[in-house]
């Protein structure tokens, strides 16, 4: 494992070939133009309702600003991070009519698909489901045999009911995905147009959560296909004839075709990109990242250049899923947080984007956390003289409270008591002191305000495997080797350069109450994007 620089060490210090990273956030769309490890240009624009317009504006910002447009031939790829599919779920609009085909034999029938969904969302997707023969045991045996006719019959019934997208979920498909693939093939024969989501390609062990994720994905398939087409069309209109990649929740890339098929994998890429970008800018692989926004602060931890994933269930639009989302602690504290005097309170309410009118340093009358930072001469924002009149004791106590809450969050995300470097990013980072308990050093890298777009630009390609092994039968080292081999193969298939792929994460979870030493092994491998490498 490399111990210098970030995991993007494959990138050269400076290079002729260029990479563009774009991050579409709830408020802003940011873009960066990078040559190797160097940030050439950056742009921040408002996110537009149609998303695409904001992306185009941000791209124009980095491609046309100053010194003329770089030659198109030099741009190798555009990497996009977007969480905008989330809104479609929350609003329940434009969702595809979705059916779930569960391959389970007699197992699991008491809890049918959609059983713990909010009624409105279930109604919005139609909620058709079919429980069919098939599925596997934890050790890979079939629960019952696969039944071609049953799948065909279900497919015809679904199509007759106007279903546009099908989620396939087999019991223990992360251990053996064969039945899901067979069913997908048969359904495709019945209708080449229906969109298919395979749970084994999306989630992990945990039937309902994985099935839910696949069903959400299926429901988003139409929107995703349209969005991906629109973005590609817009790039073509700009004369950018380059491959487009989307960043996933885990910080790796998928190509546009894959993104159109698996939009849920991109849904929480924002925080991941921000953390990966922070690590890259600071040149560290193991660090705490503190992203201070206007209303809230996210604190996460990077392990070998990737955000540590949360182990608990993640709810998307009130539906339980088991995605690997970054394990973040969010505190309701940011640059716009409103400060109350007696008793002293910071947040949770915030002036948000109205800070430039309401904060004291901008001539307003609301005391915000930013005013405290300016009064303490940590930053020159607005008209600093306005903040100088603030009571010194109030300023001191307020900033001490900021420090206490950030320190507490930092302590909670850390894996051990050892101090770690801390990287500060985000517009509100002036609130945070240069010395914090638990931090060996506090870094404020340049370009930190576009860390998320940089995170997208430096993303790599990955492969992930999760299987249950009986270690009595195969031996631990052999099982680990097999899992690693499979992860490396998947990363290479996904487009990574074979020579640069390495294993970045290995997790072994012994299954309790089982003899035979049954153990769930999960391995993740990543590598530099092949053919698009910036050399």
């Amino acid at each position, binding site marked *: 494992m490399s111990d210098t620089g970030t995991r993007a060490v494959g990138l050269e210090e400076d290079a002729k070939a260029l990479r563009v990273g774009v991050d579409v956030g709830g408020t802003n769309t940011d873009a960066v133009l990078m040559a190797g490890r160097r940030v050439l240009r950056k742009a921040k624009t408002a996110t537009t309702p149609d998303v695409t317009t904001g992306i185009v504006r941000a791209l124009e910002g980095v491609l046309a600003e100053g010194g003329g447009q770089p030659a198109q031939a030099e741009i190798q790829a555009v990497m996009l991070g977007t969480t905008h599919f989330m809104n479609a779920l929350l609003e329940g609009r434009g969702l595809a009519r979705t059916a779930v085909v569960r391959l389970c034999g007699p197992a699991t029938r008491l*809890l049918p698909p959609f059983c*713990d969904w909010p009624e409105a969302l279930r109604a919005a997707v139609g909620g058709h489901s079919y429980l069919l023969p098939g599925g596997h045991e934890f050790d890979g045996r079939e*629960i019952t045999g696969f039944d071609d006719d049953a799948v065909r019959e279900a497919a015809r019934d679904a199509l007759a009911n106007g279903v546009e997208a099908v989620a396939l979920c087999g019991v223990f498909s992360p251990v053996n995905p064969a039945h899901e693939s067979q069913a997908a093939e048969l359904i495709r024969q019945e209708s080449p147009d229906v969109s298919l989501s395979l749970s084994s390609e999306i989630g992990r*062990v945990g039937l309902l959560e994985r099935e839910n994720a696949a069903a959400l994905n299926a429901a988003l398939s139409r929107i995703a296909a349209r969005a991906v087409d629109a973005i590609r069309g817009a790039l073509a209109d700009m004369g950018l004839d380059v491959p487009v990649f989307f960043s996933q929740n885990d910080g790796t890339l998928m190509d546009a075709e894959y993104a159109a098929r698996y939009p849920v994998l991109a849904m929480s890429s924002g925080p991941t990109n921000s953390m990966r970008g922070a690590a890259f800018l600071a040149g560290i692989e193991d660090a705490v990242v503190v992203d201070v926004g206007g209303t809230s602060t996210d604190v996460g931890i990077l392990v070998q250049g990737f955000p540590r994933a949360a182990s608990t269930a993640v709810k998307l639009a009130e539906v339980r899923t088991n995605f690997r989302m970054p394990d973040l602690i969010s505190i309701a504290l940011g640059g716009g947080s409103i400060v109350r005097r007696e008793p002293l309170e910071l947040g949770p309410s915030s002036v948000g984007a109205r800070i430039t009118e309401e904060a004291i340093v901008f001539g307003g009358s609301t005391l915000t956390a930013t005013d405290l930072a300016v009064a303490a001469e940590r930053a020159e924002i607005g008209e600093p003289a306005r903040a100088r009149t603030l009571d010194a004791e109030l300023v001191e106590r307020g900033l001490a409270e900021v420090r206490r809450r950030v320190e507490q969050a930092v302590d*909670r995300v850390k894996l051990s008591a050892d101090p770690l470097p801390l990287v500060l990013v985000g517009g509100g980072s002036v609130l945070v002191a240069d010395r914090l308990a638990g931090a060996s050093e506090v870094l404020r890298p340049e370009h930190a305000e576009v860390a998320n777009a940089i995170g997208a630009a430096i993303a790599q390609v990955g492969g992930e495997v999760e299987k249950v092994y009986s270690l009595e039968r195969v031996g631990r080292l052999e099982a680990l080797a097999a899992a690693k081999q499979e992860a490396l193969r998947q990363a290479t298939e996904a487009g990574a350069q074979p020579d640069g792929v390495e294993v970045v994460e290995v997790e072994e*979870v012994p299954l*309790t109450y089982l003899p035979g030493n049954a153990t769930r092994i999960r391995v993740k491998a990543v590598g530099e994007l092949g053919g698009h490498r910036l050399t």
Partner: protein
Amino acid sequence: MWQIDEDALESISIGAGILGTGGGGNPYIGMLRARELVREHGPVNVLDLDELPDDSRVICVGGMGAPTVGVEKVRGTESYRAVRAIEKHTGERATALISGEIGGSNSLEPVIPASLARLPVVDGDGMGRAFPELQMTTFFIYGLPPTPSAVCDEKGNTAIIEDAVSATWVERMARAVTIVMGCAPVFAFAPMTAADVRRTAIPGTLSLARSLGEAVRRAQREKGNPIDAILATVPGRVLFHGKIVDVERRTTEGFARGRVTIEGTGDDAGAQLVVDFQNENLVAQRGGALIATVPDLICIVDAERGEPITTELLRYGFRVSVLGFPAPPLLRTPEALAVVGPEAFGYQAVYAPLER
């Protein structure tokens, strides 16, 4: 008598998680399964031990196998078939059902056959908490026969264990069958009489789980202190407040063993608490001195939300409260301590009862 409706299910699943003392499996799936049936057939009646008619025949049911498998190959109505299998084998009809283990996912298993067979469930169980093995239920500790017992899978297979020289042998044989069946079967045991249940069951544990869950939910809703709410519901005390600074794990013989170290905060600042676990929390030591041991309940809960933290989720940095509850009297007798005392789990320690 009271009834288990949808709201009670939600509360019981939280309370059962706390009584799981770190193990027992996640009650979420069990809650969903019971909810499907309660929605379809209506609430299930709960009887106190005193309310059981003298001629009752009470069957104990529960799930076996690995919790990790149970969240993937989720169980269905197998426990209904297991009850019917015991009835067929013994020629006796069940009149009520009871849980073998109130801690964790088994707490709600009897609700499933009870709903389908329109039978009441008994307000009590065989552990008063969670333990890893069958012979650790009070029914068997106090001499009730563990056979005939039935193990059923989702495919329609049933194995009857006709006879066994001890409950430990039932556990061994049932476990072998469990693996063949794909690790998510259910079991049921020979019917017990009302007198048997009154003598050997831990009383009132379903109500206790419900009250605990209600207290935590109310505290969360009203932004109160859930730890105070828990202690106002169950007699017990705070063993320690602090932050997890180390978690060490290893797996031997299919059990997740390990040790968590907690550094004190507030009144406990400067002190350290070490809790050993083997699926469940077993022993707590403060500065090297034993302050609580199995069978007393050692529960680690989130200091802010009051929700239980299972042993596999323990992690550095969590702010936790460690709560100690005296084990029910039936777990504190010499007969019980021989099976579920600290020595039974390999500790040299002599059981020193935790007082309130």
